[in-house]
């Protein structure tokens, strides 16, 4: 059988007894009502809970005939966690979280119960939104060309040369453009954050991945203020229209607000 089974079947104490592996999606308060239509990543498709005291783990079976990590597995993890988060506080696990069934209580819930309850208490009534913004390439690159003589000159030189003769100039041109964009996005991101911060309890600004990415930030928002926050994002989006394209994800589980232990 697969690695998944052989690894999870060997408990740390070396006991060779067979154990049942379970997948853990996240943690909730024991009185949280799970949505009915959750679809797990295991062969049964079912999602259930394992409870201990006042906390519970959202769990399912796992496929035993293959390693985890397919697109479907990732989406299943996300959709279970976010579906629960739509109506209740959930502490999301990082993908992948597999353990033996009995260790869920013995090693996860029992020893950390107080910590989990405290974190869930902080997250109660709050959800995450993730905002991503990307420059509208043509508009912003035209701006860059207009506003920078060195780039303008280099671009004109590159444009008139055959491709193989302009390689190093093109690399230099791209480097200069990327530099300008990265400088510019600091201002643009700061302005966006400044306008949205008043609507959030907490903000985490992640490093944008690509040079054309302006912002990648997570906002922890009170449920009652979701519409207000959404309206604020829409207003910012309208003001930036044609220059920055915003994309809003959520409500999500508070992935970015899970405290480090």
């Amino acid at each position: 059988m697969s690695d998944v089974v052989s690894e999870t079947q060997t408990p740390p104490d070396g006991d060779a007894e067979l154990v049942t592996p379970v997948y853990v999606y996240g943690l909730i308060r024991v009185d949280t009502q799970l949505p009915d239509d959750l679809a797990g990543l295991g062969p049964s498709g079912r999602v259930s809970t394992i409870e201990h005291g006042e906390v519970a783990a959202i769990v399912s079976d796992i496929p035993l005939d293959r390693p985890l990590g397919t697109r479907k597995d990732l989406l299943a993890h996300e959709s279970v966690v976010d579906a629960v988060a739509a109506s209740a506080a959930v502490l999301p696990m990082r993908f992948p979280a597999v353990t033996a069934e009995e260790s869920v209580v013995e090693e996860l819930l029992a020893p950390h119960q107080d910590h989990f309850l405290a974190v869930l208490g902080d997250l109660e009534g709050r959800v995450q939104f993730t905002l991503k913004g990307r420059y509208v390439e043509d508009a912003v690159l035209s701006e860059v060309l207009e506003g920078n003589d060195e780039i303008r000159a280099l671009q004109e030189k590159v444009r008139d040369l055959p491709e193989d003769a302009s390689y190093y100039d093109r690399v230099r041109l791209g480097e200069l453009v990327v530099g300008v964009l990265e400088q510019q996005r600091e201002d643009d991101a700061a302005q966006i954050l400044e306008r949205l911060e008043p609507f959030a309890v907490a903000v985490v600004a992640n490093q944008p991945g690509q040079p054309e990415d302006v912002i990648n930030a997570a906002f922890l928002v009170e449920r009652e203020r979701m519409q207000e926050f959404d309206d604020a994002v829409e207003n910012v989006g309208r003001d930036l229209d044609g220059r920055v394209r915003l994309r809003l994800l959520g409500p999500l589980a508070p992935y970015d607000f899970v405290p480090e232990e």
Partner: protein
Amino acid sequence: MTVSTQSRGGGGVVDRGGGGPGGGLADVVELILDKGLVIDVFVRVSLVGIEILTIDARIVVASVDTFLRFAEATNRADLYGKGAKPKDLGELTQSITEGGAKGKTSGVLDAAVDKVGEMLASGREDREAVRRRPRQRERDE
């Protein structure tokens, strides 16, 4: 499920993640592989494809490829000229061409018109557009 999607429909200027609230796979990967609770009790199972996915989600490099991509994009942006958008291309072509006929275009615009002409020619086999290129027109005159 999401309040935002339901209340906004397709009317707003801000994009919403399609499908679930998590949007596409790249968004999901960024969230659930990078973030969330980790407890040492969890077995690190072997994972198909995860290495590649993780690397994809973290392309932050200022590589030569990135620079070349932006050089290319900057050349494209130059085609559209100041303040113009791609959808204005037809209009722009015409005005530049007219300018060229009056002998007022700079070298930059000439080149741009050449490229636009090529694009139009290859895209639509529009002989009209090719004939309107300034250099050819000069010959016509």
